């Protein structure tokens, strides 16, 4: 994970930090409790350090994929439903239909349109299943279930080799995703700077 070079704004920050950490000026708002923070703190960074305890295998995931209704939208095998295909090698989600607007500009390599393959980090896959799926019951999957469904998608896409391989905090963090080097670093943002020098 060290390759992520997370601190893009170090120079700017060093200069500005003192001003930002000032004393509260308004006294409006209250301090959230630890429980309140925990309940909402669902974002898992690429290094997976926020991944919760739990585990699951692709075998369990295959069953949960149907049980939780995922197959209803994505196709029973992860391909062929109206929702985006989750497994490579199949036809596009809807034959002959372009990617939805908004996803067109993503310049995806063929097959890396599959989220499990596009994602440079397995933690992100876990995060999205956890927060955004399944339709209409988002956020109801338990950690073990998310690990299992994650394992299922990784297995189906040949990222892991065995349907019995246990995915947990540790294995997910160590897993090297196929697209690990498939992304460019996000450019630094500076006020009053063109988005890309020498672009026409």
């Amino acid at each position: 994970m060290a390759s992520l070079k997370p601190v893009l704004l170090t120079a700017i920050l060093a200069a500005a930090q003192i001003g930002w950490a000032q004393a509260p000026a308004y006294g409006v708002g209250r301090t959230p409790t630890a429980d309140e923070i925990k309940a909402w703190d669902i974002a898992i960074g690429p290094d997976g350090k926020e991944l919760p305890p739990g585990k699951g295998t692709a075998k369990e995931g295959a069953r949960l994929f149907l049980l939780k209704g995922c197959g209803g939208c994505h196709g029973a095998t992860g391909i062929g439903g109206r929702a985006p295909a989750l497994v490579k090698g199949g036809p596009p989600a809807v034959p002959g239909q372009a990617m939805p607007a908004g996803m067109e500009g993503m310049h995806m390599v063929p097959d890396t349109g599959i989220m499990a393959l596009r994602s440079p980090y397995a933690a992100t896959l876990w995060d999205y299943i956890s927060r955004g799926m399944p339709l209409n019951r988002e956020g109801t999957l338990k950690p073990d279930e998310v690990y299992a469904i994650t394992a299922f998608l990784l297995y189906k896409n040949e990222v892991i080799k065995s349907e019995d391989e246990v995915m947990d905090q540790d294995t997910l963090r160590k897993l090297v995703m196929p697209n690990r080097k498939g992304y460019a670093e996000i450019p630094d943002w500076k006020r009053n700077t063109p988005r890309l020098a020498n672009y026409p």
Partner: protein
Amino acid sequence: MDLKQRDLKQQDLKQQDLKQDSKSSNRRGFLKGGAALAGLAAGAVQSAKAQPPVAELRAKGTSKEQVAYGDRSKYETSVRKSVAERASPDAFGLVFHVNAPLQDFYGSISPSSLHYVATHRGAFVPDIDPKEHRVMIHGMVDRPLIFTMDDLKRLPFVTRQHFVECAGNRAKSTQTTVQETHGLTSNAEYTGVLLSTLLKECGVQKGASWIVAEGAEEVKGAGSIPLGKAMDDCLVAYGQNGEALRPQQGYPVRLMVPGFEGIFQIKYLRRIKVVDQFYMTYNDYGHITTDARAAALANQVGPKSVITFPSGGQKLPGPGYYEISGLAWSGQGAIKKVEVSTDGGKTWKDGELRTTPYRMAHTRFGFHWKWDGKACEILSRCTDELGTVQPSRAQVAKYWNEPLTKGFRAKGMDNTIMAWRIDAEGSIHNGLA
């Protein structure tokens, strides 16, 4: 002469009716009286018409609801439309991407009811009670804080016009109208608290470099934003065009990240976590490309403009004077100049900016033009405050060393020049076709 002694002579009218009439404090009563009067003399004077019944008058008028909160004229039928690729709402009731009818807009403000809509996955428009809604800021801060909507409204506010534009807003040769080619952008006057105000109140810690902002809708749409941008001009907005933010724009509160692509402008904002790295959420995936230049172009919108009148699908009734009108915007700052060509890009003349060119906001431009009735092609290009000029598709293709085919796609946020072809009949067509 005493006025009271000279009462109207009413020998040919029922005195009783009149008395009841003039004394009645019941409006229906006196109207009935009026009708009776009119009816009595109807035979005498040809032009007399019976007083219409109250019901008829009421039907002509305005309902209480229209007085309380008015609607547009029934003759105005301009509507948003789903992108061609997917219906909104779909069979599930999910809304995905909905184009705004830019050809029907005036000035710089996009009417809130017609503001374009996009969601993170296809989402329900959530039904959020603002009394229950909270915005929490935590992570690498000295003092995590949670704010009610009332809290947010007690804090210093700013009001600013900003556009939002979806990364999918790119013209294609298959499209007909400007609603289809450019309708995934809109502009509004937003009111809210600067995110920097909130972050300072929390005290950002050393080492922090990004924020993750997250919505309260079912998919909990999230995005990673550089802390430098967050501290610069991001806005936690609760007001839109003078009233509360509309549900489809994030009611009760959204994050504005001026000039960044639409997906970062987190709607239904409920949480901001200050972190020390790019979090690569699902929504950040748009930037996943091996080319750093393409990634840079996906982040912010370059200078962009489009002619909205005359535009595709419209028809000029004949030769003569027409005021060309359009919109220009840039993710890099304010628009400085808009040029218009009516000869397919051979020559360019300055248009006029007709609204204040705010930073990261739509600006309306106009251009005086007399159409000679011959086939021609009209284009606009803008320059922003950084001096960046809106590029042609040919320039962009050359930059990437790609052939300029009909299907050529500019990487990142497409800000290439749009052309409309006008034929000798006055019909207007997509210049990319």
